[in-house]
C-alpha cells in the first residue's frame, strides 16, 4: 500500500479549512448580532467582546489566506484584472475592519485621490491590504495610515502604523522572497507576506512584475508595507 501523498493531505486540509471558515462565518455573524443587541454593562465586558471579535476575525482572515494560497498553488485562482478606483478598494478594507478598529481605539486615515483608477484584481489586492491591516492593528499604538499613489507608472499602496516596526531580519526584502516556511516564533506573519508577494507577482505589464517592500519609519514611525502593481 502506498502512503497517502503530500498532495492528498493538503486537499484534506483545504477542505477542512473551508468548513472551518464557514462555521466561523456563522460565529462572527452571531457575535456581531450579540454585541449589537447587548447593552454594555462595564468596561471589562466591553473588553471581552472586543477580544472575541478581534480573535475571531483574525482566525477568519488567516483561514481565507490559507485557502487562497492553496488555490494559488493548485492553479485554481482566477485572476480578474479590471479597472478600479483605488480609494474604493481601500475603503472596503477599512469598512471590513470597522469593529476591530473601534474596539481597539485606533484611528485610521486614508490618503488617496478619489479619482485615482488602476488595473488590478480587487479581491486579491483587497485581501492583501486587509491582512496587513489586521496584523498592523495588533502591533500599532494608536494610528494607522493607508495611502496610494502612482510612482514610475506603477500603483503603490502603502500601509503604515506607529508601532515598533518590522524586525530587522525581515527588512531589505527587495531581493529576498518570502517562503511559506512556518516559523513558530514569528507567528504567521511570513505566510501573510508570502501571500502578498504572490498576489503582487501575479500582476504584470510588459516587463514589469509586481512586488512588495517592507521598511520601518515612514510618516508614522512604525512598520511600512508597500505593494507595487504595474
Amino acid at each position: 500500500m502506498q502512503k497517502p501523498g503530500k498532495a492528498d493531505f493538503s486537499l484534506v486540509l483545504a477542505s477542512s479549512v473551508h468548513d472551518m471558515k464557514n462555521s466561523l462565518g456563522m460565529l462572527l455573524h452571531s457575535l456581531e448580532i450579540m454585541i449589537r443587541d447587548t447593552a454594555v454593562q462595564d468596561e471589562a465586558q466591553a473588553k471581552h467582546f472586543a477580544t472575541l471579535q478581534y480573535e475571531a476575525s483574525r482566525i477568519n482572515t488567516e483561514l481565507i489566506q490559507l485557502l487562497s494560497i492553496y488555490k494559488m498553488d493548485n492553479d485554481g485562482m482566477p485572476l480578474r484584472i479590471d479597472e478600479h478606483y483605488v480609494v474604493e478598494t481601500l475603503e472596503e478594507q477599512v469598512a471590513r475592519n470597522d469593529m476591530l478598529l473601534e474596539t481597539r481605539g485606533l484611528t485610521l486615515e486614508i490618503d488617496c485621490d478619489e479619482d485615482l483608477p488602476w488595473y488590478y484584481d480587487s479581491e486579491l489586492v483587497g485581501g492583501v491590504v486587509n491582512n496587513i491591516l489586521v496584523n498592523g492593528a495588533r502591533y500599532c499604538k494608536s494610528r494607522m495610515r493607508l495611502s496610494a499613489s502612482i510612482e514610475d507608472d506603477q500603483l503603490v499602496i502603502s500601509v503604515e502604523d506607529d508601532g515598533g516596526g518590522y524586525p530587522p531580519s525581515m527588512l531589505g526584502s527587495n531581493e529576498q522572497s518570502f517562503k511559506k516556511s512556518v516559523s513558530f516564533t514569528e507567528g504567521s506573519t511570513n505566510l501573510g507576506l508570502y501571500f502578498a508577494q504572490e498576489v503582487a507577482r501575479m500582476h504584470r505589464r510588459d516587463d514589469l512584475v509586481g512586488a512588495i517592500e517592507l521598511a520601518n519609519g515612514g510618516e508614522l514611525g512604525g512598520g511600512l508595507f508597500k505593494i507595487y502593481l504595474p
Partner: protein
Amino acid sequence: MSVNYKGLQALVIDDFDSFRMTVVKMLEEFGCKHVDSMMTGAQAIKACRAKSYDLVLCDYNLGPGQNGQQILEELRVKGLLKPAAQFFIVSAESSKSIVLAAYDNEPSAYLTKPITAKSLKQRLDRQLRQREEMLPLYQAIEAGDVNAAITEGTSMVRRGVRSAPACQKLLGNLLLESNQLEDAEAIFKQVLEVRPLEWAQVGMARVKKARGDLATADVWLQKIIADSPFCMQAYDELIDSYQRQGKTQEEQEVLEAAVGISPMSILRQTSLAKAASSNNDMAVAAKSYSRSVRLGQHSVHDELENHLQLGRTTAALFSEDEQLASDISREALRALETAAKRFELTAAQKHQTTLLESQMHAYRGDKRRASDMLMELQNTLKEDEGELCLEVQLDLVATLQALDLKDKAEQQLGALIEEYKDDQQALEKIDALMDEPLSELNRRRVSKINGEGIAHYQAKRYQDAVLCFKRAKQLFPRNLGVHLNLVQTLVSEMTEFGRTEASLELCGDSMKRFEAIMNVNHKQFKRFRQLQEMVRKLDRELKD
C-alpha cells in the same frame, strides 16, 4: 455624493431567519423604506414577477431548492430584472467552480461572508452611486431605445464620468448588438491602448466575427484563452465560431476545456453533450447529458430533450463501453422517470420516454421488463391509430434492436426509409441507425473524409490516413468500407515500419465487428478475407 436608499425597492433572499432579518435590518438602517424578504427561489421569482426591484441581496446556499446563481439565471432568462437592477450574491462559498458559474450570469457583485454592516454599506454605496449615474443609460435600454442609450453612453465616456469604465463596457456591447462595428471597434481599441483588458480583447474578436472574418477571430480568441484561462466569454465566442463553421471536433475540444474549468454551467454542459453526440463520441455525450440533467434539477435551462438524449446516448454507449454505460444507465432511468414530473409531456413524448426506459432495461439485462414495456406501448399505439412522428419511430427501431428483434427492426427501418425517401433532413436522422448513410449530407461527409484518407494512403502518409479513417469510423461506426480502409492502412504501415500491439488491436476490433455478417455473397467478402489473413499473420509474428 450620498446614496438615496429611501426610494429603492429592495429584496432580501435567505433561508436562514437570523441572517435574513439581520440583512433586512441593515438595509433599513441605511435608509431603505421598502424591503421585502423571501426564503426560497420560488418565492423570490414570484416576488420579482409582481414587483420590479432595484436592489436584490441573495444568499447563495438556500437549502434544497434553487441556489442564488440559479435564481439570478432564471430572472435574467425571464427578463424579470430591469437593466438598472443591482443583484448581489452573498455567499460563504468561494470555490472556483461556484464563483465562475455565478459570474456567467453577471451579478453586480459576489460578496463573501461574513459581511458586516459597514462593509455592506460601503459596497452598496459604491454600486448604487454608479447605478444612479448610469440611470439615463439604463432607462434608454429599458425603453428599447438603443440609439439614445448609445448617445448617452458615448457622451458619458467622453465626459470622463466616474462610471466611465462601466459605461465603456456596456457601450461596446450595445454597439456590437446593433451592428455598429466601427464604433464598437473604436471603443475596444481605446481601452486596449491603455491595458490589455480581457473584455475589450473579446470585444475585438467579436467585431472580427461580426465582419465574417472567423479565422482571425479564432486566432485571437485562442490567444486570449491561452493568456487568461478563466475568461469564459472567450471560450463561448470560440465555441460559437467553430459551431458556425461546422468544425464539430474543434468545438467539442474547446467545450471540454471550458467545462473542465467551469463545470457548473448547465448550458456549456448541454452544448458539450450535443457536440459530442454529433461527433458520435457517446462516452462524452452520455456523461455530459447526465451532468446537465443533474445541474438542471433546479435550473430554468432544464430541458426534456436533455433527459431523452441522456437515454439515447447511454443506449448507444452500451456497444462501446458496457461498464460505463451501465453506470450511467441508472441515472438515465431516473432522468426519464422524472421527465414526466418535470415537464408536461405530449403523447409522443410519453411514448419516447417509455421506449427509452425499455432500452435501458434491455441493455441492463432485464429483457422481460423491457419487452413488457414495449408490448404495452404497442397495444396503446394500436388503439389510437394516429400517425407516429419520425422521432418516435426511430426510438422504436432502436428499442427493437436493443431487444435483439432484428427482423422487426429491419422491417420497421425499411418502412421508414420508404416513407422519408425524399426528405433529406429525416434521412440524416435515420442515418444514425444505418450501415451506409442515406442522406446526401452524410454521404458527402463520409466520401470527403474517406477521399482524404485514401489520398494520404496513396502518398504513403500512413499516420495522416489513419487519423482520417479513425475519424470516419467515429462518425460512421457501422460503415464496413471505412473499417476496411482503416485496417488496410494499419496493415501497410505495420508491414513497412513494424508491428505494434495497439494497431493490431484496432485491426482486430474492426474485423470482429463484421465477422458475423460476412458471407461469400457479400460484395466485400474477398477483400475482407484477405485483410483478415494479413492481420492474423502479423499477429502471429508479433507473438512469436
